[in-house]
């Protein structure tokens, strides 16, 4: 679903190497957890997958589309939720969702069904006619999530998706992620909550100082040592 090859990105005219020769694949049907300390390069990588940042070197394909050469097709395959839901405050929730429906060309009937499904699930149906300006952080997160999933994309890219969500919504989102991947789709998400990654992810990648320091299933990361928790593996890899 995602194929990242030799990806590099630096800031401040090469002074800070944010992502350093990263190679990574996310397969269809899997939830891939992307972990790393603050400033490790998670968000930079995610933003390059989405097309918010351009890579200095390397290539990314999403659902078979090169994100540089076939950017619109790649974007059509992705539903993205950023870590900070900065969204049009002066639109109502429903206007925002309809806007997303229009730009992703979702037919009215399908759109209606999906909006109703998600707004009811996230308990937003009482707020969709209000301006987003009046929403709490969690509500914004939910409206962005709904907007990102409205076109039923093959790949969900979620940057810290559980931050700000109430326990019920967080639980529902995790269920949704599982169900989405069970249909052969994929989820690529970053998190700092290691317990969530441990329970939810099919595979995990750990990035540290721009380099991928570990990748695999939890079993593979443990290297046969059943006592190791993800936390101890993470700390061991990132405290070098």
């Amino acid at each position, binding site marked *: 679903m995602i194929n990242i090859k030799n990806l590099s990105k630096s800031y401040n005219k090469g002074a800070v190497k944010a992502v350093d020769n990263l190679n990574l694949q996310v397969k269809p049907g899997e939830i891939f957890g992307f972990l790393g300390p603050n400033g490790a390069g998670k968000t930079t990588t995610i933003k390059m997958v989405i097309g*918010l940042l351009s890579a200095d070197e390397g290539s990314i394909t999403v659902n078979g589309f090169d994100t540089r050469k076939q950017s619109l*097709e790649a974007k059509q395959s992705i539903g*993205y939720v950023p870590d900070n839901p900065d969204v049009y405050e*002066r*639109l109502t929730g429903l206007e925002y969702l*309809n806007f997303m429906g*229009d*730009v992703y060309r979702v037919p009215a009937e399908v759109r209606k069904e999906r909006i109703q499904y998600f707004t009811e699930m996230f308990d937003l149906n009482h707020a969709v006619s209000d*301006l987003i300006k009046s929403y709490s952080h969690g509500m914004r997160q939910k409206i962005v999530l709904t907007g990102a999933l409205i076109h039923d994309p093959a790949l969900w890219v979620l940057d810290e998706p559980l931050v700000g969500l109430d326990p019920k919504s967080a639980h529902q989102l995790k269920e949704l992620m599982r169900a989405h991947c069970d249909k052969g789709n994929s989820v690529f998400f970053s998190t700092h909550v290691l317990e969530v990654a441990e329970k939810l992810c099919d595979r995990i990648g750990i990035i540290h100082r721009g380099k991928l320091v570990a990748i695999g299933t939890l079993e593979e990361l443990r290297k046969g040592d059943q006592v190791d928790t993800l936390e101890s593996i993470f700390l061991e890899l990132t405290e070098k």
Partner: protein
Amino acid sequence: MKMLFTLIKLQLNINFGISALKYRFRKEKTRLWEPVLVGLGIFVGIGSITLMMTMLMLGIFIAGKSVNHPEMVLTIAFVGGPFVVLIFGLFYIISAFYFSKDMDILIPLPLKPHEILGSKLAVVMVNEYLTLIPVIIPAILVYGIGTGQGFIYWLKSLILLVLSPVIPLAIGALIVVVLMRLINVRKSKDFFAVVGGFLSLLFGLGINFFAQRIPKGHEAEFFKQYLGQAGLIEHLGQKYPPSIWATYGLSLHNMKGNLDFLLYIAVSALLLLALVWIGNRFFYASILSGQEVTRKRRVLSADEMERSYRKESSPLMALLSREWKLLLRTPVYALNGLAGIIIGPFMVIMMFTAQREQREELFKLINNPEYIVPVSLGGLAFMLFTSGMNIVASTSISREGKSFWISKMIPAAASQQVMAKFLNSFLISAFGTIITGIVLVGFLNFAIWRTLVLIGIGLLGAGLIVCLNLMIDVLRPKLEWTNPQEAVKQNLNGFLGVLVSLLVIGILTGVSVAFIITKLPEWIIYLLLALIIAVLLIPSLWGLIKLSEWKYKNIEV
């Protein structure tokens, strides 16, 4: 006291972006010409206003001298300056005290309410000097030089100049803090922004209107007639006593003068003390009472839901509708975007309501067949001016700010997104062009067929201006801002856009003058102008699309 100064230093730093400027000069080292240009712009702007005010004050001084009251110029400056400060200051204070985003950081800190209030007031005060300097300095200079004053006068003047914003701002702050305790202004932030914006606009236009009525070359006689009545100083002084203390404090060199001078200082200090006291009692309470979020929380009926889903539109229309809604629903965008549409036609109407002799001359000129072409082209220039004087196109990407990630993420081509922005800006400019056309027909008796032709050319010109303005914002969008004000008012692109618009109008004026001199028939001139604009517009649109396709890829968020 130490805490207050630390806070003031911090607030001034944030307000003027001093650290950001240092960072730019020391680390980033990019676009260093921008702050220099802004500084130069402010300097030239204030300088030219000061020069204009000096001429005005000189007129008042000469008029005052002829009725043996040369000090009248001081009274007028010390009434006029603080009055403007109070009017503008009220909205500035409301915004600084109640709408600034850093309140959420400052309130939990172990600071006294008056320290926060004082630091915010200090920032407003520093900004208000920009308003006061062009009013008060010319009066002080004109009176001081005109009556040959000595060292004591200049020293006192300096002290009074420094203190001049204190009284009006302290009064403004007291009104605001008490008012806020009673009503929840925070809830109606948008309403206040719109009212404040329109008041400022009306105030500016009113001054312009008044200035139009002063006969050129006869300013002194005009002021003598209006202001030369005996007891004017006392009359004004009754309305705003500090002005009389300042006047006598500066102009009389006796006991009364010194007492008045001290009285001015004492009242300034007293008002500040009152503000500290009121601030400590009410400031937090009034801020906290405005913190509640207002939301209707109305569940849509099944019918309403059904209707909203049926509105499926093409991506281009969806993008256009987004632009339109965000522009109109954000007061500062709507005001800055639509102000041009009001100002252009207003200027035409102002010409109509000018003095009778001037108006009659104007009508003679308009109806004279010999001048019909230059007059009509003047009308066209007004239309283009109306299109060029708005910042809708030149800030249209900047306005997206932190939500620009949505535009980067959606599967809509950059060219399509920019085309939606072009259409949105063009619709507003077209509206201005048509309104100007209607005003030309209604007030200046322009023939309808001619006005329709002019509107046609005006619309083409509006397209060109919008296209060039949009290019500026595509090239260098300002996406880093926390307050929508910064996206339009503190955005160099708006200024550059106006410059480009004036350049286009200038070039077209030059071409028109050449056509008039060569005595081409009227319809040929219109045709040639339309052709020239169209020839410029087509490659500009192509350039805009190519530019956006390249630039959108490279904007990183």
